[in-house]
């Protein structure tokens, strides 16, 4: 969010349809994504009610739990889900490429991508993973062997979403909202139906009108995982009673199909909408990282890696936080570097400026403090229309030469003087007068993570070494209410 997005929202209201806030697509879109629309039973933490899942728009698979309070039926559902998801997920573990450079490694050429309607579905995936990954296939409450495996994968996918720029598990509403500003509030953008209504209103309707129509839960049921209370009371309750009495899930299936099919269509409409945008320059790099993580997880599970613990220990928590922040920084910078429209947000707030290089002193050399001989430090004088809010000495980067760092020397009205500090091997990387240039303080990051103590090295300040995590019986037997 920022003033440009806000302006675009205002514009959307007047134009009667959503306005672009990106010129390129900032997420990876698989050639064969899997769409997953889970529903849960109201009032329960993670009681699956049903789901529509699949990779072919024309062939959705409908899974239902005809009596969600029955834990055996829930696990049967999870097993059935595993039969569909695991082949898809594990199916990418085939051809690899060799990544050279430091820590040379193999990496799968492609990886699974699962699309869910929105943030609530992501949270539900987390809970499904949490409630199944510790299950035992023997002992008190045995489950199908595929269930804990699915639990591990769902956990993996969820945890990827905590890192900015990952495309392994994507909430579609957020993906759309990243590229279009609607004439409604961000809160309302969480509704897939209204969001799409604004982005591509049916002919003859304004986004406003289309969105209003899309708010009717009868035509456009909530995208889940929460169901419409009206539906629960008027339809579902009855259907479940019917199952209890007759043992036939037909009515529940029929009921849930009516709730899931509209969303299924919307999900694929959203996919087409996103496909319409060309992929941003840095997406491939970020997706490669997703593939790296996928490759690792495949190997970890192959070695019988244990399910992830319930909560992080001190060390892992610190490492994860560091990585999450690094990912966020890189992601924010890359999106701006890749997309002039995203950059406008930063230009408007003075964190970046574009303009014309009106004068370039390419041969300038200066003697650094403590230095022996003068080093090249070209000066670029830029005329810009942007309200620059960077101060002299501020480190900036050139959008056109991402690796090159520079610093603001002085600012005088619409004239900014920038000194280039590196990437100057024999005069390379210096713009010439008349070039269009763009400098910004946004840093692509990429620093090396400091060393954090391993579990047994945990220092006294953080409670000393924690007891090693062992999945307890409790994890396995904790009965689903």
């Amino acid at each position, binding site marked *: 969010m920022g003033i440009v997005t806000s302006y675009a929202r205002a514009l959307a209201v007047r134009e009667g349809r959503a306005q672009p806030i990106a010129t390129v697509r900032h997420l990876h879109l698989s050639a064969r994504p899997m769409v997953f629309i889970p529903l849960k039973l109201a009032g329960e933490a993670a009681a699956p009610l049903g789901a529509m899942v699949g990779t072919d728009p024309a062939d959705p698979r409908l899974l239902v739990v005809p009596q969600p309070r029955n834990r055996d039926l829930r696990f049967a559902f999870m097993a059935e889900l595993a039969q569909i998801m695991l082949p898809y997920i594990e199916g990418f573990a085939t051809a690899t490429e060799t990544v050279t450079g430091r820590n040379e490694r193999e990496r799968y050429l492609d990886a699974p991508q699962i699309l869910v309607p929105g943030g609530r579905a992501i949270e539900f995936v987390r809970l499904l993973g949490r409630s199944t990954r510790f299950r035992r296939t023997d002992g008190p409450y045995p489950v199908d062997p595929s269930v804990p495996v699915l639990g591990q994968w769902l956990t993996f996918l969820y945890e990827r979403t905590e890192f900015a720029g990952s495309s392994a598990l994507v909430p579609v509403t957020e993906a759309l909202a990243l590229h279009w500003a609607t004439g409604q509030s961000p809160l309302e953008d969480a509704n897939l139906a209204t969001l799409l209504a604004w982005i591509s209103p049916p002919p003859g309707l304004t986004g406003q009108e289309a969105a209003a129509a899309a708010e009717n839960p009868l035509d456009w049921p909530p995208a889940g995982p929460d169901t419409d209370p009206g539906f629960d009371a008027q339809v579902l309750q009855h259907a479940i009673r019917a199952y209890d009495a*007759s043992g036939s899930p037909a009515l529940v299936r029929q009921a849930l199909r009516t709730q899931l099919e509209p969303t299924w269509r919307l999900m694929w409409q959203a996919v087409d909408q996103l496909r319409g945008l060309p992929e941003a320059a840095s997406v491939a790099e970020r997706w490669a990282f997703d593939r790296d993580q996928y490759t690792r997880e495949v190997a970890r599970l192959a070695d019988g890696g244990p399910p992830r613990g319930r909560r992080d220990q001190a060390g892992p928590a610190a490492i994860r936080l560091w990585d999450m922040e690094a990912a966020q920084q890189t992601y924010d910078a890359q999106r701006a570097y890749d997309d002039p429209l995203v950059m406008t947000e930063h230009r408007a707030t003075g964190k970046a400026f574009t303009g014309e290089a009106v004068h370039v002193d390419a041969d300038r050399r200066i003697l650094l403090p403590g230095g022996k001989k003068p080093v090249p430090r070209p000066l670029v004088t830029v005329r810009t229309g942007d309200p620059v809010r960077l101060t002299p000495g501020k480190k900036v980067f050139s959008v056109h030469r991402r690796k090159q760092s520079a610093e603001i020397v002085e600012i005088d009205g619409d004239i900014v003087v920038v000194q280039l500090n590196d990437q100057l091997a024999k005069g390379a990387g210096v713009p010439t007068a008349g070039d269009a240039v763009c400098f910004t303080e946004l840093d692509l990051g990429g620093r090396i993570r400091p060393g954090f103590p391993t579990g047994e090295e945990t220092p006294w300040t953080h409670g000393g070494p924690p007891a090693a995590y062992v999945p307890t019986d409790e994890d396995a037997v904790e009965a689903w209410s």
Partner: protein
Amino acid sequence: MGQLVGCVTVELDDLEERITELRGEIRLAKAGGDDAKVRRLRAELRKAERAWDDALEPDFEPDDVPLLPIREQVHQALTLLGVPSATKMIVAVNEAFFAGRVTTTQLTSLRRDEEKSFRSSPYARPYYLCPALTAELLSPARGLLAISTWPMDVRIIGPLSPRTGFLTSAIRVAEHITRLTGAGGDASTEAYRLLTRMARNIPGATEGFGRADPARVISAADAELVVHLESDRRHRREAAERATARLNEVTRLFGAGLKTASRSAS
């Protein structure tokens, strides 16, 4: 049978279609705030649903009808527990030890029938199932059933009684399991599940997640019981005397209304 199910399902399908329609319309009407219409549709819907239930009726017949009538089964369960008990507990004990089919709904109606029958012809039956009485107001205690033949003070619920009652029932359940196993047989899994569930809430009665050990439960429950028993008894006896002094033969069994209560308070 299969044929019956066949035609039933045919009928069901039409009904269900109609029902789904009606529900859709109701939601529309509700959304539009058209209360009159909602009411009309609701009535229609209820009719359809009743028809649907009837169509299912044959399936509702339980395969093996219990040997004893409901009140007998309740009596059986209460006798085992030996203290005024909530319907949930009665149902649990009933299915844990007597493989019965008592449902909570049946129990509520049962209570009313008992009072009616007593009022019409007192003491016609060897025993009646009646509510426990609150010590303070001698009014019927919420959802707690007792047996008329129990001494007054056993049917009274004082502040400590819910706990002593719970501990006592735990002991009785444990004892009954021991009796069964002692007799060479064994108790049902439901029985052990019930015992374990109760033991979880008694200090020192369980360890780990396995099934509870009856002996251990008994000693643990006893240990806590002795703490409360004395003052609980005193409380109940005192109330029992008040009851015998102030209540007539009906209210003595089925509890006093508010008037008696306020008098007893003054």
